[in-house]
């Protein structure tokens, strides 16, 4: 009965949930940011909170969202919660449910928000005002933000915010979140100086919420009385769509975009990678010079520095990939890609909307699996969760890049546009996609039989991606990556170095092959011998069970120890001595299909609510990876 003993487990990040702790609720104000999808919510959120945001868990539910501390002008601490986009308070998907629950105070630990910021698209005011009726009827202090003011003006539309405020009985701010124009008005509201409705406010009669056509008529009247002059249609969007959705040019453009992204990741990132590599080598030398020759120096330089450094090199490429996916998402192109993909997805019983999480799974499966919450049909959602880890995530990039660079000679294939290395990389991406689709088909014909799902997708106008939002996303990603390099990979490298030097015999460390690490590698060698791997790769496979990129650090440490006496032998050269080309291909195939990622297992456990699906998924993917790698090796060694 008592609310106090409700216990919810906090997710991996202990700092996350603290912000919404009921104990501190009385001294902190929290404000819910709501709006329909594509109203510019996240852009405003980023503008208001900048780097002072973090992912938090709502008490009692396993749903994570961004909470940010607002730049304060008064002494008060205000936290803004970025809620998932909604069309109404009638949820159709799980993330819409969360928004409704937070707004109605259905989360007992959280209570009602102190205030609401309702953000609407000023260029589509009539339809977006449909959401104003249910939100304002909640009776919470609400600021109505009309976003995209610059777009509205540019397309010849207009609205009178004061008249609208009088109509709605709530303050109204006309802003442009992208340019920052008018955002100070939102800050004023958040800091409490204009929380009251305008003095002229009369009692507002809201329509009956169940009567949607009635609500729409109400919205039309309110718009009219507020002098709303709808803007001209977005001509640029129509021009671009006639290109991007063209029967021939459309798919070709899509392909060209994808190829350009990968080519840039390969060639464009090269100088950056060289820079990082030089920085790591130089700093390693400095540190090496500061430590007396002996065990400790070997531990720091050949163990930790070689392990962590070999992973850090891939940061520029991973950030580039996230940058491209961010641009595709923020520009509105992703919705078109979902539209183009719908027919293909329908063949395997999925729908175009599943394409968006699947595409973001190219960056990382964890946010992708969380993004599946927007899929309304539960079986569709489960199927998407189960296939998402097959998509080639950025953690696979390091091993792919390393092996391809070591084994595929770089030759132009289609002039300067496409090189053999890029083609090999693209091939691996296609491989992951094909495995995902095949698995979806398998699910459909076995455990997840279902009727065709409904596909309803709004196509937002194309917009210039916001540099701030892109930067924040990259910053977020870099922090996650560096944290992992500084914790998991550092720890694995350190343990591995120790295991590779024990046991001591006659005061001398063991030879690598006779060390504990070597023994473990030899233990698994019989199992991986058919795939063409030796015991060193075996050690890498074991450590990379936690996270794929760890294999690079492990190999870095192993070869670092092995070649400690020689002048730096690059990982590529060392790998060429250890793997036959057929075994290299087999290694790539194994990494393409295996589910070597604790974070993904954990997030699937959370999102599906039990260990059943993550277990099935892990076993399925591992068996699939093993058999495919075996087949590849046999085929190439015929």
């Amino acid at each position, binding site marked *: 009965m008592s609310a106090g003993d409700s216990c919810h487990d906090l997710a991996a990040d202990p700092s996350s949930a603290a912000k919404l702790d009921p104990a501190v609720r009385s001294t902190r104000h929290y404000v819910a940011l709501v709006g329909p999808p594509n109203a510019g919510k996240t852009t405003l959120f980023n503008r208001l909170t900048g780097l002072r945001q973090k992912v938090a868990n709502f008490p009692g539910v396993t749903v994570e969202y961004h909470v940010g501390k607002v730049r304060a002008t008064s002494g008060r601490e205000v936290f803004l919660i970025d809620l998932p986009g909604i*069309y*109404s308070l*009638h949820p*159709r998907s799980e993330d819409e449910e969360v928004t409704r629950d937070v707004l109605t105070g259905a989360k007992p630990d959280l209570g009602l928000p102190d205030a609401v910021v309702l953000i609407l698209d000023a*260029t*589509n005011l*009539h*339809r977006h005002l*449909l959401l104003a009726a249910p939100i304002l009827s909640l009776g919470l202090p609400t600021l109505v933000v009309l976003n995209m003011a610059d777009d509205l003006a540019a397309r*010849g539309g207009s609205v009178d915010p004061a008249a609208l405020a009088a109509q709605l009985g709530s303050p109204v701010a006309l802003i442009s979140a992208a340019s920052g124009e008018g955002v100070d008005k939102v800050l004023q509201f958040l800091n409490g100086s204009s929380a009251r409705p305008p003095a002229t406010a009369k009692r507002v009669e809201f329509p009956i919420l169940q009567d*949607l*056509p009635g609500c*729409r008529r109400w919205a039309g009247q309110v718009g009219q009385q507020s002098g709303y*002059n*709808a*803007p*001209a*249609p977005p001509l640029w*969007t*129509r021009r671009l*769509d*006639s290109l991007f*959705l*063209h*029967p*021939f040019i*459309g*798919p070709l453009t899509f392909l060209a975009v994808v190829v350009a992204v990968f080519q840039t990741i390969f060639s464009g990132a090269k100088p950056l990678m060289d820079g990082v590599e030089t920085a790591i080598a130089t700093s390693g030398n400095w540190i090496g010079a500061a430590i007396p020759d002996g065990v400790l120096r070997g531990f720091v330089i050949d163990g930790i520095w070689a392990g962590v450094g070999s992973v850090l090199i891939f940061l520029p490429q991973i950030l580039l990939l996230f940058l491209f996916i961010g641009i595709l998402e923020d520009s509105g192109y992703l919705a078109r890609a979902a*539209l*183009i993909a*719908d*027919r293909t997805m*329908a063949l395997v019983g999925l729908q*175009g909307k599943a394409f968006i999480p699947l595409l973001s799974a190219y960056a990382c499966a964890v946010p992708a699996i969380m993004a599946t919450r927007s899929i309304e049909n539960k079986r569709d959602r489960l199927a998407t969760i189960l296939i998402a880890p097959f998509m080639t995530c950025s953690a696979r990039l390091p091993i792919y890049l390393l092996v391809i660079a070591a084994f595929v000679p770089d030759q132009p294939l289609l002039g300067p546009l496409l090189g053999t290395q890029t083609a090999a990389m693209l091939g691996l991406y296609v491989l992951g996609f094909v495995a995902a689709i095949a698995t979806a088909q398998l699910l459909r014909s076995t455990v997840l039989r279902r009727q*065709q799902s*409904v*596909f*309803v*997708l*709004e*196509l937002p106008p194309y917009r210039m991606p916001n540099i701030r939002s892109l930067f924040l996303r990259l910053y977020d990603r870099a922090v996650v990556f560096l944290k992992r390099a500084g914790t998991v990979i550092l720890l694995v490298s350190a343990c591995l170095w120790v295991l590779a030097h024990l046991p001591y015999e006659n005061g001398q460390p063991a030879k690598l092959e006779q060390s504990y690490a070597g023994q473990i590698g030899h233990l698994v060698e019989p199992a991986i011998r058919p795939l063409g791997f030796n015991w060193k790769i075996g050690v890498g496979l074991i450590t990379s069970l936690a996270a794929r990129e760890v294999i690079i650090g492990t190999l870095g440490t192993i070869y670092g120890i092995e070649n400690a006496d020689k002048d730096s032998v690059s990982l590529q050269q060392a790998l060429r001595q250890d793997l036959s080309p057929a075994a290299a291909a087999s290694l790539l195939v194994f990494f393409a299909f295996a589910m070597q990622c604790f974070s993904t297992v954990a997030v699937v456990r959370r999102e599906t609510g039990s260990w059943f699906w993550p277990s099935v998924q892990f076993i399925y993917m591992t068996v699939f990876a093993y058999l495919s790698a075996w087949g590849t090796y046999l085929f190439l060694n015929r």
Partner: protein
Amino acid sequence: MQLTFNKPTGTPATDSGSSLVDLRCGQTAVLELLEVPEDLGRRLMELGFFPGSDVVAAGCAPGGDPRVYRVDGSEIALRKETASLLKIQAGSIRTLVTTKSPSSHS
């Protein structure tokens, strides 16, 4: 609004079974009835598909399905199977002619 109406085109839909699927690209019609389950109907209305609204067939994905419809200031993509459940008023199909002069939206 940059769109003006022509006279109704030669073949007015006579059977009451006409739906959004029957619109060719650039044609518009008045929505009459949403023959869909309640929760889907609600979502479609939230997106602007009300009985009585003007709906414009704006385009389609390469391959012809899903279709894109312009309604109440937004563009919404629907599969043909869903669009075929959104019935239109008999004889309300018109062909739009695009002009360059912008004027206000009703």
